[in-house]
């Protein structure tokens, strides 16, 4: 094959299936360009960033076309695009669609609650969209280079977002910590990738999997065990940083406290969802091979990943819940809650690693559990941070004390927040319960009973600190008792829309679960 043939093949591949599947990302790119141009060409149009972002995200959602794939209209199986760099399947469609839905909601949230400096709005949304682009790559990565690129593209804009508030000591401190910690973990991860890629002789994820299987089957594994394990752990460090798994979570509470509530919402939802999707992809890559003998040979790898992720999940969950006790700052509390939920979400991934060998159907339902959890989690945390932002605007404080007697000052907000908190605990009949249920069911299916016990115990543990907030809102009285809080109608409406899915999916979770099931259908 000469040079021109290669160019021609690449062109055909790119212009044909690849660009079609890549339309959502291109829509995001176009929006970024449009944002920058509009600021240059029409500087007077103050609300342009908001409208452009909403339209761009909606267009991306439209191109991602979840309804086509998730309703089973197209029975397309996984397809690789851009000569195998990215993979395009129902899972990536589902996760990216969630991401774009989140972007739309997020843009509206920023519109409703406002950012400190309006002239920074364009930069803010450019950063958001840039990070979202990185997350899209994470969600459909099929090559180690894309994995690393995606993580970096998602992280670097986030560092800046954390430090968006000018002249606030906490903000720049948060940004510094985030940047230093993020860059350090990225470095460690890259080194791990270099080891894995070098030893396995490929950076293409499925090929790495088959190479690993051959290596394990062929027996010339022993001398490379150490390097493989070390490489795998280092890759896990990078992921654990994005997932905020203990002990790589340290940045998160500090960054959440220092950044605005909106940015915290973005970090806690979008970045967590993308990392979760990537984790699923990597576990599948190293734990699964289409060939039966190779699949059997990968058993030690699966065992290792299940134990690693399971242990991290258990520790993360417990640590997050325990540390959330005694917090006085609402964002910090939600930060620890985010850590705990990352733990819950990792549990079905561990179960999936365990089940992938013998029971593909059960493994698929574990992936559905992750997908389901992420969707519910999106609305829970979005609502929670929206409340934090609204209360900050109305009361000027993010301390839990500021929520005292909220139910009298702003009944609707307090009721919505209570529903969100109960859903975070996982009390029926709210969606949080359904999410925990499907997650724990997978863990049970995998026979990881110790992990299940930790999960259940943590649910009980978490009850108390969430409930404390409800108690403060309902029973404590504010010292200034300044009457009703000024809340815009749009804010109340927004909160209602975000809270409604938690109730609806609580009573009718089959609706969402059918989609989550479709999302996992094309995997392995």
């Amino acid at each position: 094959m000469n040079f021109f043939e290669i160019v021609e093949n690449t062109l055909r591949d790119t212009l044909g299936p690849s660009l079609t599947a890549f339309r959502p990302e291109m829509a995001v790119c176009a929006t970024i360009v449009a944002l920058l141009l509009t600021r240059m060409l029409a500087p007077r149009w103050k609300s342009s960033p908001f409208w452009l972002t909403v339209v761009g995200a909606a267009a991306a959602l439209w191109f991602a076309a979840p309804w086509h794939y998730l309703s089973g209209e197209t029975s397309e199986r996984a397809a690789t695009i851009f000569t195998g760099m990215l993979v395009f399947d129902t899972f990536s469609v589902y996760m990216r669609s969630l991401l774009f839905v989140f972007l739309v909601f997020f843009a509206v949230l920023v519109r409703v609650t406002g950012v400190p400096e309006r002239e920074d709005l364009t930069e803010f949304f450019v950063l958001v969209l840039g990070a979202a682009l990185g997350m899209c790559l994470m969600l459909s990565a099929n090559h180690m280079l894309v994995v690393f690129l995606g993580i970096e593209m998602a992280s670097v804009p986030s560092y800046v977002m954390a430090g968006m508030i000018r002249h606030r000591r906490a903000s720049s401190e948060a940004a510094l910590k985030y940047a230093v910690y993020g860059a350090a973990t990225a470095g460690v991860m890259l080194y791990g990738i270099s080891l894995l890629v070098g030893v396995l002789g490929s950076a293409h994820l499925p090929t790495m999997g088959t190479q690993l299987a051959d290596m394990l089957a062929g027996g010339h594994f022993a001398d490379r065990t150490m390097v493989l394990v070390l490489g795998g752990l280092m890759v896990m460090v990078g992921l654990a940083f994005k997932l905020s798994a203990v002990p790589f979570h340290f940045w998160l509470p500090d960054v959440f406290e220092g950044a605005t509530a909106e940015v915290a919402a973005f970090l806690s939802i979008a970045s967590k969802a993308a990392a979760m999707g990537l984790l699923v992809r990597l576990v599948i890559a190293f734990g699964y091979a289409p060939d039966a003998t190779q699949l059997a040979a990968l058993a030690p790898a699966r065992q290792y990943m299940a134990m690693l992720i399971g242990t991290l999940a258990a520790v993360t969950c417990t640590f997050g819940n325990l540390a959330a006790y005694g917090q006085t700052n609402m964002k910090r509390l939600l930060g620890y809650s985010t850590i705990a939920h990352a733990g819950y979400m990792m549990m079905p991934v561990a179960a999936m690693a365990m089940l992938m060998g013998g029971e593909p159907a059960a493994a698929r339902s574990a992936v559905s559990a992750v997908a389901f959890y992420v969707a519910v989690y999106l609305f829970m945390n979005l609502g929670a941070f929206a409340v934090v932002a609204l209360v900050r605007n109305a009361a000027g404080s993010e301390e839990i004390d500021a929520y005292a007697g909220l139910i009298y000052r702003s009944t609707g907000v307090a009721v919505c927040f209570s529903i969100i908190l109960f859903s975070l605990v996982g009390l029926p009949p709210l969606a949080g319960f359904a999410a925990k249920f499907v997650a724990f069911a997978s863990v049970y299916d995998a026979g990881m009973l110790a992990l299940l016990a930790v999960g259940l115990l943590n649910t009980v543990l978490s009850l108390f600190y969430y409930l404390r907030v409800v108690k403060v809102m309902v029973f404590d009285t504010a010292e200034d008792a300044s009457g009703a809080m000024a809340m815009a109608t749009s804010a109340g409406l927004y909160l209602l829309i975000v809270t409604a899915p938690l109730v609806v999916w609580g009573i009718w979770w089959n609706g969402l679960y059918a989609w989550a099931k479709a999302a996992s259908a094309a995997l392995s």
Partner: protein
Amino acid sequence: MFDVSTLLILIPGVPLLATLVTAALGRWVLGRRSHVPVVAATAISLAASLLLIAEVHHGAQGWHVPERSEGRGDSANHALRSSGRATQCEDQIGYEQTVTLWTWAAVDQAPRGGQSHLRGENAGWPRHDSRAAKTGAVPTGRDDAASRDFRIDVTLRADALTAIMLAVVSFVSLVVAVYSIGYMAGDPGYWRFFTYIGLFVFSMLMLVSVSNFVLLYVFWEAVGLCSYLLIGYWYDRPAAAAAGMKAFLVNRVGDFGFALGVFLLWTTYGTLDFHDTVAGGAVTSVGILGQTRLADPAMFATGATATAICLLLLLGACGKSAQFPLHVWLPDAMEGPSPVSALIHAATMVTAGVYLVARCAPLFAASADAGHVVAVVGGFTAVLGAVIALTQTDLKRILAYSTISQLGYMFLGLGVGTVLGVTAGMFHLFTHAFFKALLFLAAGSVMHAMGDVIDIRRLGGLRRRLPVTHWTFLAGCLALAGVLPFAGFWSKDMILAAVHEKAGAGGALYMVLYFAALATTFLTALYTFRAYFVTFFGVEKVPEEAGGHAHESGRAMTGPLVILAVCAVAVGAVFGWTHGFADFLRQTPSIAFLDARTAPMFDESQPPATAHLAIVVLSTVAALAGIALAAALYLGSGAAVSRLARVMNVLGLYRLSRGKFFFDELYRLVVVRPLAGLARACSWADDRVVDGLVDLCGRLPPALGSALRPMQNGMIQFYALAMILGLLVLFAAVFL
């Protein structure tokens, strides 16, 4: 006119609608009229419930208590039975009808492959596989690949048990809602109160009509939430807020057990439905309490699994129904408004545990040990509650401990495990709902008149000022004490008869429980009439909080009192004497199953109460003795002495009236001291040991949390170090 499915949707649907209307419009539009939707809705629910009873009764006509053939459950008989499964009606056990509204969740589980050992041991399923092979067509749940899907349909059911519970709940709710119009008048949170009440009524109606353990759990939590909200209704009182919290926390313990029990049910039976799912004439999924399983008792798990399931469910029931050792929350719950105490903490929600155990009677029947535990917990709680009630001075707390004690009675009946026992337990639930609601509402009326003073030491001689309250309270007391024609007598006697019957069938345990129950009868009469005499007799004492114009409550409050008083007088005789209640209830599949399974030693042609004349006499004597002792002790102080002497003269018991002094001394020495000591010990154990444990569990996580938090010291370099250390630890863990 209405078919069963319409009624089933209507009964909880209307209160839900009313709740939403009140919540949305109450504050600004309805205002003082916020009660209208809820009262109207409960009235509609009540009417629909009564229609439902008629429908169920009508529907059950085709079915009779089955002839007791020894061959039932026999495998020879069985093949024939399941081949005729498509035409269900002729041989179905009891009467039930289900309505599926929508599919809540359908989580598909993979067919189990090689790892089936993780499902737990095959204990209790000795005949499972051979059976499945024999009948072929009927999938049996566990281990069966096709039915591994976790699927929950929102299904409502109609059977005798549900119909009765629906009627009781909607009736008491209606009465209490009407009462609240007067009681809560002028409260700033009027609309909020009725919203909560509406939500509670909806949840409670759903709780008793769903046909699935998961939904049961959901509404179990929902009524708990309503209870929590209503206990803490007067949030500005610290005691109310603390009591709400306590109720919530103690109930968590029970609910945790319940949740584990449901989980175990799922792993054991592979479904959580009560009913069979029928599609295209064939049973596609066998419910836990479905007809297929009831027809073949061998399909129930036995042994350790069954006992574990039952005990976990019992733990949940104990939490909700305030049984030892989880009873501590109920007395504190009296911080809520009196109508709430009457509705939730006496008549309806606390009986959810009884309902659960009655519903799961076939499960308990599969484990004799669990039955014993239920009976012992019930019997012990009955005595404990009664003993503590003796020394309380807060009228509502006396009634609360009394409720605990009476619920113990119900559990005792259920623990017997025979048809008679379960129907007796349910019958006691039924009568208790009326007279205990009455007592609480009357106590509320006293409170209302006395400026919220409820300490009986500060009250006295109120019978003239509050005539209606007095008479209705007396009716309630007589019913509670179990005096002959009143409601409590019939149900209590049925329980005693059931326990006695079981004791007669061999079982020293049940003999002990029988005497404990008799002793409780005595104690019940004693504390009930102590409260009654101290409050309504003696020197008239009106606390200054009443503002000098203490008078009888308005008609909105006295009306419900009178209605309930009539019920407390009549309901036992009507349904107990005629045996109508038990006959109706036995059409419930779960209970009919017992009927088919246990051959009673007891001749059913006669009403049980009369069959055991000795029991009637004994319990009546015990009750009267209690009343007499109460009269002797509490009518004899101060100015009442002369009147007491006159009463004694009338009775011709002058010598005894002198002896009263002597009895008083003796009583003080022999009864009061030890009882007070015991009561104090119980209450100390309550406060320190039980509460202490609860507190400890509450303090541990925050302590751990604050121990961990210094790790988050803000130093980025420490974070980096922790990252590297974490990496190394994980690395080392692989090779060590």
